[in-house]
């Protein structure tokens, strides 16, 4: 499979601004959630996307609201890149009524169907067939839209990987399968759990293009994604893209990360995706340091506002427990009422 180098194809200033802003939003959002989780006030499990920003952003820069994405338990970054509202996301993570899912889903299930975001997912491997279904709708309704399935290196060993990609390939569906290979599934290394050198190699088995890119390089991801999205929109079928990356935090908040080695320091510094893009943008004269730094300040304030919004938001009301189970009727309280 081909190895893509950073391609210098021009990025317009407008697109660069959008990409940098989204990467910052993800980073600051996740850093804040990490901080707040540490104080013990956030309920439940939280899996952070910090470090992997270039993947969601490099993909979603080619998408619009009618395109769908499926996500994972590590879904905040996908949501942000697909245009979900920060306030609504934060409120969801807090379990408040103003959350994107009225507080009923939480971190692992944030969704915004209007934005084409088909939900973070608590089930590893859940996204493959879901993306296939969204792609089928696009094909049958001739919308020209695509569906992108983000998944982890761990998910690439789940049976649904095979079933999903094979179906997308035989029906030439407009689906892009995007592996986020951060080296670990929980505490289990990719090289232990997967009998392949690269996830991209597995594309051979489905007779579709497979590409491996530096998932810390948003330009490289953007280039590979461009080819895949064009192919999908042209009705030529799916592509598998493997983005090699690293997660800055543990599997979930509270993980001691004893399985990580020396490499983690490099990833937090030289190899950092945002630093890389910053250097690229200033080096190419696309944006100035002042512009980028100002954006950083603005995004920090936006995240502050999201936290404030969440904390001031009301809790869901008791009657909401019984709503949204069915379209046609409200379930009664059952035996508990």
């Amino acid at each position, binding site marked *: 499979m081909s190895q893509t180098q950073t391609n210098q194809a021009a990025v317009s200033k407008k697109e660069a601004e959008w990409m940098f802003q989204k990467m910052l939003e993800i980073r600051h959002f996740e850093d804040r959630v990490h901080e707040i989780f540490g104080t013990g006030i956030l*309920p*439940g*499990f939280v899996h952070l996307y910090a470090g992997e920003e270039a993947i969601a952003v490099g993909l979603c820069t080619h998408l619009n609201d009618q395109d769908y994405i499926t996500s994972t338990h590590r879904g905040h970054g996908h949501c942000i890149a697909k245009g979900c509202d920060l306030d609504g996301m934060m409120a969801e993570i807090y*379990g*408040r*009524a103003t959350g994107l*899912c*009225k*507080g*009923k*889903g*939480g971190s*692992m*299930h944030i969704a915004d169907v209007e934005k084409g975001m088909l939900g973070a*997912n*608590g*089930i*590893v*491997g859940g996204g493959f067939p879901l993306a296939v279904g969204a792609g089928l709708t696009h094909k049958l309704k001739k919308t020209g839209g695509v569906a992108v399935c983000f998944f982890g290196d*761990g*998910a690439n*060993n*789940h*049976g*649904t990987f095979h079933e999903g990609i094979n179906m997308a390939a035989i029906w030439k569906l407009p689906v892009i399968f995007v592996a986020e290979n951060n080296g670990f*599934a*929980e*505490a*289990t*290394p990719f*090289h*232990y*759990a*997967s009998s392949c050198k690269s996830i991209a190699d597995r594309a051979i088995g489905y007779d579709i293009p497979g590409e491996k890119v530096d998932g810390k390089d948003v330009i490289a991801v953007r280039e590979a994604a461009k080819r895949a999205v064009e192919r999908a929109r042209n009705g030529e079928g799916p592509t598998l893209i493997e983005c090699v990356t690293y997660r800055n935090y543990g599997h979930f908040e509270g993980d001691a990360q*004893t*399985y990580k*080695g020396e490499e983690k320091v490099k990833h937090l510094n030289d190899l950092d995706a945002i630093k890389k893009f910053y250097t690229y943008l200033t080096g190419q004269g696309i944006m100035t340091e002042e512009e980028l730094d100002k954006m950083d300040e603005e995004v920090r304030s936006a995240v502050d506002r999201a936290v404030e919004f969440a904390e001031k938001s009301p*809790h*869901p009301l*008791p009657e*909401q*427990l*019984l709503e949204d*189970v069915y379209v046609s009727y409200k*379930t*009664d*309280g*059952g*035996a*508990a*009422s």
Partner: protein
Amino acid sequence: MTRQITFSQAINEAMAVSMREDQDVILLGEDVAGGAAVDHLRDEEAWGGVMGVTKGLVQEFGRDRVIDTPIAEAGYVGAAVTAAATGMRPIAELMFNDFIGSCLDEVMNQGAKLRYMFGGKAKVPLTIRTMHGAGFRAAAQHSQSLYSFFTHIPGIKVVIPSTPYDAKGLLLQSIFDDDLVVFFEDKTLYTMKGEVPEGSYRIPFGKADIKRSGEDVTIVAIGKMVHTAMKAAGELSKNGVEAEIIDPRTLSPLDEDTILTSVEKTGRLVVVDEANPRCSAATDIAALVADKGFDYLDAPVKLVTAPHTPVPFAPSLEDIYLPTPEKIMKAVQEMTGSELVI
């Protein structure tokens, strides 16, 4: 005082004891050791499961017997079925019972039916350990209690311990039982402490535990709900109502006699189950009494369960999703007609 350990430690100990006793006992699951093939990682630093329940087992038994699997439930649970049928005595960990969707065929169509379909010429001494239960803020795909699902299927034994003592004794029984057992661990009970003997002991299946005896009402409670029911019983007693609390401990087989004998004495039955109410353990037990103990009843059977909804994430909703002592007291009040101070 005798030794007190946690629910989690009790489960860990049962596995260690069984693995010492029998070389054929192996453990498979995602990160049950943790950090497979990470050169710098010492075994004592390894995760030992997402909740640390299997911690230390890899140190004592090695990675040949404590096996980290890929995220491939259909693969390793299916493999465990035939490993069991061909001479091993595996314990497969299904991290959350909600993930049964990824391996239901292997459990339902393969493991559960092998013996019957083969005319009794095979056995499947497999234990599937799995986490269940709401109250952990883990949302809809990590909080269900799906034991009725398995109870419905002939060929599977279903175990739900409520105390550290029962957890160890029932898990040892499960591991050495020659049938397929699904063993439920309530994630909110892992830190609960209780008296647990060292060494080996087994609690037989199909023997309910009478947690408290009383004359006025029988309360059958499942898993963690035993503790909720005990709280309610304490309050009821202050109001002059004495409840008999029964923990069935296994739903398949079910100790019908203990339940029927108790209802014969009290004339009233409340079933407390945190699972969803339709086609549930609660309705099953209610049907048992309607069928075989109707003449004993002085009042309609009452069920206190979760509503017919997925488990909500928001704490404000999850708290009202679960049965509480107050809801149990209300049910008792309705059936006894007594004026309780709730």
